[in-house]
């Protein structure tokens, strides 16, 4: 038997039953090989060292610390879920209200279109879309903020609300800019 095979068998014999024939061959090898004899003593020393050590005990208060973290994890998870639901709900509500309100504007614009002013009709449609997007983002941001505040999450940990306000303001400004320019063209055309 080679030394490498003998050492593999030494390790194996610590974890499971080795057939008697292999055990006999291993013993014969160890009787003749002093290096493998020392090797077996060393791995038995290691096994005895590890095997003699009991489980170390946890620090006091581990259970309480775990339950505090579990409670925090639950709050964060609930806040994320509620925020998403409230955001979607607020968005749908605003869409419905503004959709109804702006239906009148669309009908009026269509009236202009019937009289030949297609550009004016398209302009009104674009205006409505801008209005919808900006109001939804603004209200969604506010809804998000309210829910997170209710759950005790610090404002400093959030980026969603400021981001939504910025997007909303940018869209509103762009919409105002387009409408203002378009009116200017109309006035100059009338003159």
């Amino acid at each position, binding site marked *: 038997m080679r030394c490498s095979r003998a*050492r*593999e068998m030494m*390790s*194996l014999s*610590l*974890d*499971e039953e080795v057939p008697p024939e292999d055990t006999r061959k291993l013993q014969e090898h160890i009787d003749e090989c002093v290096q493998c004899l*020392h*090797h077996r003593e*060393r*791995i*038995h*020393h*290691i*096994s*005895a*060292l*590890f*095997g*003699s*050590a*009991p*489980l*170390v*005990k*946890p*620090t006091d208060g*581990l*259970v309480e*610390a*775990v*339950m505090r*973290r*579990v*409670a925090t*994890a639950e709050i964060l*998870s609930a806040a994320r879920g509620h925020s998403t639901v409230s955001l979607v709900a607020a968005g749908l509500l605003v869409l419905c209200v503004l959709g109804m309100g702006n239906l009148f504007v669309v009908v009026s614009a269509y009236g202009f279109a019937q009289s030949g002013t297609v550009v004016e009709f398209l302009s009104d449609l674009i205006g409505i879309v801008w209005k919808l997007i900006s109001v939804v983002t603004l209200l969604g941001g506010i809804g998000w903020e309210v829910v997170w505040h209710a759950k005790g999450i610090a404002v400093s940990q959030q980026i969603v609300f400021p981001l939504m306000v910025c997007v909303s303001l940018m869209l509103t400004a762009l919409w105002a800019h387009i409408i203002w320019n378009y009116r200017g063209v109309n006035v100059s055309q009338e003159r």
Partner: protein
Amino acid sequence: MLNERQWIQATLQGDKEAFTNIVEKHQGAVFNLAYRLLLNAVEAEDAAQESFVRAYTHLSTYDPAQSFITWLLSITAHYCIDVLRRSRRAVTVELDESRQLCDGEADPERYAVARERDRAIRQALDLLSPHYRPIVVLRYWYDMSCKEIGKIVGLSEGAVKVRLHRAREMLAQSVRQQGDTAESRPDEGFNGLKETEGNALFKS
């Protein structure tokens, strides 16, 4: 008195008290695994907490056909392996309370032996990389078979046997090297423990 299966069911239905019972029951096993893998009492406490939080948040994915402690230790082992891989070199921080190292009341002499043994074990485990350390710890402290260890660390039974063999080779090699130096400085190294008060530890 509810059993573990009933605690798990109750936890899934929102009963936090039931989960407290689970934590109380398994905190020793989880903390010990984290401490033996990270070799750092402070990091081990954080890892134990994180393991339980992950078990709580993923409890719905637990398969009741499997052993719960095996599933829980699997979460701990994977978390600790990630921590070990992220940090280049483990900074060992020993336990500072005698109560944690000894069963029952610890007299100073027993505590000294236990402390010395703990130091020797940390020194030995520190030689092993994240590939080998969990396998050795699960084999010796949890008396798991190679098949069970394989399930936890995601290896075949054969691969676990090979790693155990290699880990023992590395440790035996280190014992041999330290044995040479221990002749001149017997108190150093985990092999040096043979020459000290804790020599009974090496008798199988």
